Structures are given as C-alpha cells and as structure tokens.
C-alpha cells in the first residue's frame, strides 16, 4: 500500500510553502516519524515526518517547487521490507534490505541548522483573517480569474467581488487592475515578448564576472519573502516613529530587591521584558487603535493582546507570540520567553507559536543599540523598540542627576493611529515603567 505524503496544515494563514530539501530519495528506507522533507514557509521551516515506516516510493514535487497545503509531496511504500524500526531513531535510518541502498543521508544535522529560520523581529508578520470576514475568501477562483490574479500578482482579498455568492468575476479583477486597488506588491512588468525564461529576472541583468574577492550567495526564497514583507510595510503604511525616554531606576531597584526571591520561588529569572509586556497591555487597552489592523476598507479592533517578542537565536531573530499576555503573570511571561528562547535556539518553535500577534516588542538593546527605528510587523499597526539602558546626566528639578535611561521608539501606521494616540500610548508606557507599582494596580 502506498501512503501519501501531504503538505500538513502549516498554521494560521499559511497556505503555501516551498519544498526546500528532500532528506530521502526514492528507495530509501524510512522509519516512523523520521523527517522526510523540509518545507520553507514565510514564517518558519518545517519538516514533514513519515506517517508510517517503509521506503520512499516516489517524490511528486522536486526541491524548489511551491506547494499548497494538502498537496501531494510523494508516497511511502509501507510494504518495503526491512524498514520497520518503529522507534523515532535519532540516528540515520537504515537502508531497506531490499533497496540498492545508496548511503542513507543523516537528516538530523541538516534539520537542526535549517529549522529555526532567521527572521528579523518585525518581519514574521502573521496575517490573521478575522473569523467571518473576507467574503468570498474561501470560494475558489475561476480559471480566467485565477490567471489574471496570478499574472498581476493581486491580493484577492482586496478585490471587490460582484459575482453570484460573492464570487470574483473577471470584470472585478479587470476593474481592480485598472484602479490598482488590489496590488500585492510592485506591479509585474508586462510579459516580456522576448526570448529566454523571463521569470528569472537576474538573467535580464548584464553578466557580472566572478571576482575571487566576492562571494556570490543566491537569495533564498525566505529572504525574498522577507523583503516583500518589508517593502509591503513601507509601501502600504504611512509609517513614522515617535520617541521617548524612560528612567529605569525604579524598575531596576524593584528587580534588584526581589530578583533572588523571584528566582528562588519560580525558578525563572526576573527580567525587564515582563514589565514592558504588562505595561504594553495596559497602554494598548487604553489606546485601542495601536492594537488594531487595517483590513481592506475596514479597521479591525482586537480585544485580545497577543504580544510578539523578538528572541535571539544563533540563526537570527524569531518572533514568538505571548497569547493573551494581559492575563499572564510576570512569572508566566518571563518563563514563556525563556522557554521560547531555548526552543528557538533548537529550532523547536511551532508555527502557531509564531502567529497571531497583535503588537510587537523588539529589543535592540541586547545588541547595544541606543536608538533604532523599528519597522512595522504587518498587518500590525505599531511596534515598540526597546534600547540599551545607558546612564545619563538628567535634570531632575534643578539638579543634574545620573539616571539609568532607555530610549523608547514606537513606529506606527499613521493611517490608523493618530499622532496624539501614538504619543499618548508611549507616554503611558513611560509612566508605567517609571513607576512599576502602577502596573500592579493598573492606574
């Protein structure tokens, strides 16, 4: 019996992935749960594991191909002999006795390197689709409509549907093209009527001779998606940044006073992130537009507070999300973040854990940044940048005092957030951090 290997559900809003690497070749023996193929998505890299033991019978989709959720990747022949070690063996699988046995590749090291994919904090933008929204979103496109949408790289969610039962008609797409209202990114140039595979744009460039002092590295699909996201944020949002500074003295005193007791009781170190996350939740509740999103012609206000927190890994930064952070205790927040950090380093974060954020906090201070302007994590409307705590002479009353200061930056989408709201939000954050007791009392 052939068992089908299919693209698994990749988590919220992820419908497409690229086949990055096959760990097995047809004929190779496969143990249960052994990684077979690696898929890249715009969020993370995931491995598809064997749902049964046997031998890899066929590969339907070669590396580098885009696949949709549910698509057939290949098949496993369950009946292949000698290939039934049910244990999720950490070692490489033994080749099937009957198979001609090419050297079985050891999947694990490769997987370890590529699983947690480096993404800048502001980039792993989930695109949550509000329940019940997106009329016509699930209705398949007709052939002509599908081609027009693909050819022009349109976002179907932005096309006004006039067809029966909310279907997008060809006329709807033509209208959207004419008004430019549904562009996903910069419009694709008209099909070049010239020679050559026109979909490899680098071939349009004049040849660049190899230089031994230069290293040429092909841009990964993931990096391209990241670039698209960055440009999407810059192209669509009216983005600007407001700045403030916060005196960390009280928070540092509080931390110093209870650090040991906290760690002793909870087994978790008390950091500053919990202060900022809780303060952000309070400020977000007071300034709901900062927690909102623009969706087509609507504003979506979210009455939940999922805070994305940048976590450093050797491969780069990932942004796991603290779900319902407003209901989390300090210890929960610190514990979850340290767990995220550990698992991010091992590449064990799941897609769900990196989806669904409503607001993001990025801490450039850990690298020593004194001042950076964060870029939006679309479709979120604002992002907070924390920075290094630096002792600075401050005027307090009429005296100059040395205080531990931190700059705060809030980048926001001016289309949805007014200047007054953004500034007030940041001032509120400042007030809460400077007097942490207010966080406890929510005043």
């Amino acid at each position, binding site marked *: 019996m052939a068992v089908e290997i299919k693209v698994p559900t990749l988590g919220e809003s992820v419908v497409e992935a690229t086949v990055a690497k096959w760990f097995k070749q047809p004929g190779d023996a496969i143990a249960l749960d052994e990684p077979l193929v690696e898929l890249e998505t715009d969020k993370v890299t995931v491995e598809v594991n064997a749902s049964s033991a046997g031998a890899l019978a066929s590969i339907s989709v070669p590396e580098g191909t885009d696949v949709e959720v549910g698509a057939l990747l290949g098949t496993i022949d369950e009946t292949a002999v000698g290939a039934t070690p049910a244990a999720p063996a950490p070692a490489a699988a033994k080749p099937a006795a009957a198979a001609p046995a090419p050297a079985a590749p050891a999947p694990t090291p490769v997987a370890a390197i590529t699983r947690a994919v480096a993404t800048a904090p502001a980039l792993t933008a989930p695109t949550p689709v509000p329940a019940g929204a997106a009329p016509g979103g699930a209705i398949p496109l007709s052939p002509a409509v599908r081609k027009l949408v693909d050819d022009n790289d349109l976002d179907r969610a932005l096309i006004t549907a006039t067809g029966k039962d909310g279907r997008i008609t060809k006329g709807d797409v033509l209208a959207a093209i004419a008004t430019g209202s549904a562009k996903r990114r910069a419009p694709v140039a008209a099909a070049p009527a010239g020679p050559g595979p*026109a979909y490899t744009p680098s071939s349009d460039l004049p040849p660049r001779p190899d230089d031994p002092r230069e290293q040429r590295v092909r841009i990964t699909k993931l990096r391209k998606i990241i670039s698209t996201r960055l440009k999407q944020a810059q192209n669509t949002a009216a983005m600007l940044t407001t700045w403030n500074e916060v005196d960390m003295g009280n928070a540092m005193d509080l931390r110093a006073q209870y650090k040991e007791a906290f760690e002793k009781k909870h087994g978790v170190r008390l950091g500053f992130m919990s202060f900022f996350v809780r303060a952000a939740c309070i400020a977000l509740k007071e300034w709901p537009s900062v927690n909102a999103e623009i969706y087509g012609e609507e504003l979506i206000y979210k009455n939940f507070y999922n805070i994305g927190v940048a976590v450093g890994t050797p491969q780069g930064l990932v942004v796991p999300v603290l779900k319902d952070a407003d209901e989390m205790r300090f210890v929960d927040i610190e514990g979850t973040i340290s767990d995220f950090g550990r698992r991010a380093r091992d590449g064990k974060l799941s897609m769900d854990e990196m989806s669904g954020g409503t607001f993001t906090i990025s801490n450039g201070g850990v690298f020593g940044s004194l001042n950076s302007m964060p870029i939006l994590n679309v479709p979120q409307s604002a992002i907070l940048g924390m920075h290094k705590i630096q002792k600075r002479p401050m005027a307090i009353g009429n005296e100059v005092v040395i205080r531990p200061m931190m700059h705060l930056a809030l980048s926001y989408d001016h289309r949805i957030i007014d200047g007054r709201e953004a500034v007030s939000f940041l001032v509120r954050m400042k007030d809460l951090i400077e007097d942490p007791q207010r966080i406890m009392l929510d005043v």
Partner: protein
Amino acid sequence: MSDAYDLVIIGGGPAGYVGAIRAAQLGLKTAIIDKRGALGGTCLNVGCIPSKALLQSSHHYEVATKEFAHHGIKASGLSVDLKAMLGRKEKVVEDLTKGIEFLMKKNKIDYLAGSGEITAPGEVTVKPNTKGAKKQTLKTANIMIATGSEVTPLPGVTIDESQIVSSTGALSLPKIPKTMAVIGAGVIGLELGSVWRRLGAEVTVIEFLDVALPGMDGEISKTMQRVLKKQGLNFKMKTKVTGAKKLKTGVTLTMEPRDGGNAETLKADVVLVSIGRRPVTDGLGLDKQGVGVDERGFVPVDEDYQTNVEGIYAVGDVIGGAMLAHKAEDEAVVCVEIIAGQTGHVDYGTIPGIVYTHPEVASVGKTEEQLKEAGIDYTIGKFPFSANSRARSNADSDGFVKILADKTTDAILGCHIIGPSAGDLIQEIVVAMELSASAEDVARICHGHPGLSEAVKEAALGAGGRAIHI
C-alpha cells in the same frame, strides 16, 4: 543559421502546433519540427479525426439499414462503397492538416519537416525528410518536446499493418473483413471495433480485465458493454492473448483464461492490437543532454512543464497522464505562457474523456469507485435518456447521466454520461466543475426544452433527491 529562436518545438501534434500558435501570439520567434510530413500528429492523421470520420460514415450506414424502417422510411439496395468511405476520410484529414499548415504560415511560425534532435543546450539539429537535404542547426532559448506517443506492441502478436494491425492500419483496411479480433477493450478498440462491426464484420473484443473501458465509472463500463453486445459486438473478458499465427487466409490467435483454464484459439481475418500507447522519445538526444526519462519512457517535468534540464520543456502524451489531445493542447498553452513569463495551470481534475461509440460515453472528475476508495461521502443523481423527451423523439434513448456530488457541500465531484451526444453534454459539467459549482447550481440553471441537456439538469436535480421527470 545565425538567427536564434525563442522557442523550438519538436512534434507537430495537438500539443506542438497549438503551443506554436500560442507562442507566436505572445511574440516568441517559433519553429516547429515534425517528421511525419503532415502536421496534426497522431490525432489528426491516424487517430481522433479519421476514426471519427469512419464512425460517422458507418453510423449512417447502420442507421439506414437498421433504423430507417422504424422511422417509416423504406430503403433497399443499400451497400457500402468502402473506397469512397475511406476516400472521404482521407479528404477530411488532408484538408485539416493543410489547415494547420496555413495556421503556421499565418502566425509566421517556421515549419520544418524532418527529425529534430537536441544536440546541445539551446540547439536543435533537424534532419530534413527530403533525401540529400542538408542538416540544419537551430539555436533557441527554449525547447519544447511534444513528440507524443505510439502504439504499444504486444509480444507474440507482431503488427504488420495488413493482417495484424494497429489503429493506423485499422483506419485503412482495403476491404471489410468477415471476422475481426480486437485485443483490448479500451477506447480505441471499442471505437474501431464498432466501425467494422457496423460495416459487416463479426467482431470479437478480447480483454484481459473483467470490464470494458477500464478506469471508467463501473456502472458506465457495464452499460457500455451491454449496449455494444446488444449491437452485435462479441466480448471475451478476463482473457489473455498468448500468441498469433499468421495464415494465408487470416490469423489464429491463441488465448487462455486469465484466471486459469484451457487455452483456446480464435481465427480472424484481421486482428487489431489496441492495448495502449507508449511515449516516443527515440532520436531526441535526451540521453546526451541529460534529460531524465522514467522507467516507462515518459519524460518527467515540474509544474512549469520543465524537464530536469533548464530550458527544455515537455508536454502532451510524452510526459504521461491521460493521453488526450485536449489535455496535451492545454499543457502546451500553459507551458508556452510560462516560458513567456506568465503564469498558468492545468486543472487535471476536470479533463473530460470521451468515447465516440454509439451511444457515446463521456466522463469527468471522480468515478464512484474512486470516491468510495477515498472515503468521500457522496450523493448520486442519475437520469436515464429513456425519460428525456428529446432522446425519445430521436428514438435514441440508450444510456443515462450520472452526477456525483459531495454529500456535505453538494460540490460536483464527477459526471459520467453514456448516451447520445454525451461528449458534448459533458462540457456543461466541466465548466460547472471549473467554477466549483454545486449540483444544485446546475439544477437551477435554465436548460432549453426539449433538449438532451435536460437529462443533465435532471441528474443534477436527482443528486438533491428531487428529479422531476422520473
């Protein structure tokens, strides 16, 4: 030759010539190479078209001899002028192939009659058909292989195209055989078997499997076999042909039951071998260029129809899948659009398949057997042509329409028709499926009366348990 092409297509069948025209429309400088000496490929020269010409002619004869009386028309002294019949067929083919040559000229596509071989990346060498003519080397950015397929031989039954024929020979038999054996109850076997049966041959169809039209919906296969049997076609199912002995007066086939039993023989004037087709890749130079071929000879391609070698594409029968001209054409169009920088996609779930017997058989989407195996819950809407007023008026009411819809969503999953004009009726469901319509959608769309398509509407109603006329 210094002027380079954007696209060189090897093979002038439905995939090749349609792809060439689309390429020209998109502004690509295109050449098409074909060694047959006439464009149109198997389909036009020795396949779909000539067989349809003979099916139509032989159907007229059958109607005149067997059904006129029922309509109150008296005719006597009817006979077949085979030479004229074959002549008409030749003329149809000739006119159509000329038409394609004209289309090549109109679209400024260079047509080279000869064998094409890929001799280097971006280079195709053409050995012209004309003797003594020099080889030509074409430089091109892209190559599309569209070389199609050929008849699969049967070991022990060697085709000589006179006594033991392939579909090609069966389209040009010099005289009507008294007896004919057809090996394989697939589309070609049943169509050509019907032609010669109608013209007077005693035809026996031998099939290894236990159903005619294997792969079709089981109910359709069964009905097809029953109807053809009623028309006078003999069937020997679950039977394996083991050898053939040619005699002066005919061929003796030796056969044995598939599941064991005594061997037997069958003598026939002519034997038609129609057990399938295999891809053609000989002489293309695939080996030297490193183009991969699978164990059955097909050329695997990615979703852009590109082979494992960049710049070399393949479409149609040669890449496997359903060996149908319309599937090949659609692949060629999409492939060329992708080469030109556009996007494209063929929906393999909605490719219709048609058998041009009488009654016709047409099918799209999943069969009932496939749904059962996939564990999908479905509803069935079935409507017989005997309850359709137009079919009754025509005295042509064998068969039925069967629509399979998803039990939960009512989405149409498959449609299978046996009956008059089934091949044209199916197209409504192909469109509906491409647009993700439900069975109720089709049922709620107005159908002209009295029309055969009302049977489709009634079957769609039936999927919701509310057919009107039955």
